[in-house]
């Protein structure tokens, strides 16, 4: 399937609507995983499964090495996430994994969360990142906040994302908002 930005926005709109969310409501990726029957296992909850050393490895020593994995079990999908990472990072990582799932990317290209650009299909990575952005901060919300002159900290707090993520979603809309404001002021 050829995914355009418009089509991906439509997917995000449908999925958000299925959770009863309007375009400006904050989004919970854990809730959408539940809606789709995708089990999410934080690493720290797996220490009773005979892998204490592995849990300690990713929670402490090599915490930054890995953020999440979307794992196929036959037709099923589960997500294992590194819950030593910050809450906002976990939310965006999970939204990214959901992006792969919702865009029906083939599994051979999708394994290991947002930092696998070097090894995997770059187009699909960009698509999953785009969809994650639209799930967490839809265009309509970004437009409104740009015109209302919200800074990154305010956007980040309202939508439970990092300020860096907020900047990524807001940049284009801020450019548009400032152009529109400049146009208005020259007319006056």
């Amino acid at each position: 399937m050829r995914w355009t930005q418009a089509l991906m926005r439509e997917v995000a709109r449908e999925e958000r609507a299925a959770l009863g969310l309007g375009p400006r409501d904050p989004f919970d990726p854990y809730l959408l995983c539940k809606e789709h029957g995708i089990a999410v296992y934080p690493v720290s909850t797996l220490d009773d499964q005979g892998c204490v050393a592995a849990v300690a490895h990713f929670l402490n020593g090599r915490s930054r090495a890995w953020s999440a994995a979307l794992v196929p079990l036959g037709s099923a999908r589960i997500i294992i996430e590194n819950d030593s990472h910050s809450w906002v990072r976990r939310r965006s990582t999970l939204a990214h994994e959901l992006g792969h799932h919702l865009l029906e990317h083939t599994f051979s290209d999708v394994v290991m969360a947002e930092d696998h650009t070097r090894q995997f299909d770059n187009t699909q990575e960009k698509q999953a990142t785009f969809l994650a952005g639209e799930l967490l901060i839809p265009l309509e919300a970004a437009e409104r906040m740009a015109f209302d002159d919200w800074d990154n900290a305010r956007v980040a707090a309202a939508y439970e994302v990092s300020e860096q993520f907020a900047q990524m979603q807001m940049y284009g809309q801020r450019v548009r908002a400032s152009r529109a404001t400049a146009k208005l002021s020259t007319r006056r």
Partner: protein
Amino acid sequence: MDIATNVDVRTLHAALDAARSERGLSWRALAKELNVSPSTMSRMANGLKPDVTAFAAMTSWLRLPAESFYQIPGESSDDEPELLAALAPLLRARRDLDADDVRYLEDLITAAARRFRSERAAQDG
């Protein structure tokens, strides 16, 4: 909404997958044709049963009798491929993970898969 409790969800999902692939439909497009939510299709892929209305829409779309998808007690259609055999080459191909990372990730994936299967088995009763 009533759940179609005695449905062999794996067989039904596989039948839908084959039919939609043949017609060139994505899962999302199929959900729209069936007038069900896309999450209904994902939930089935994850071993959760559809509600009776969705089940009827699916068998009708497949043009197959509902009885074709009734579960036979004691029979399991568990045919998952060996998980780590498929994943190990992908993990090892990652340049940002060292040998310990890969080994520990394999442990975590095995543990999560075990938990998932036991949770689904408990759900199926």
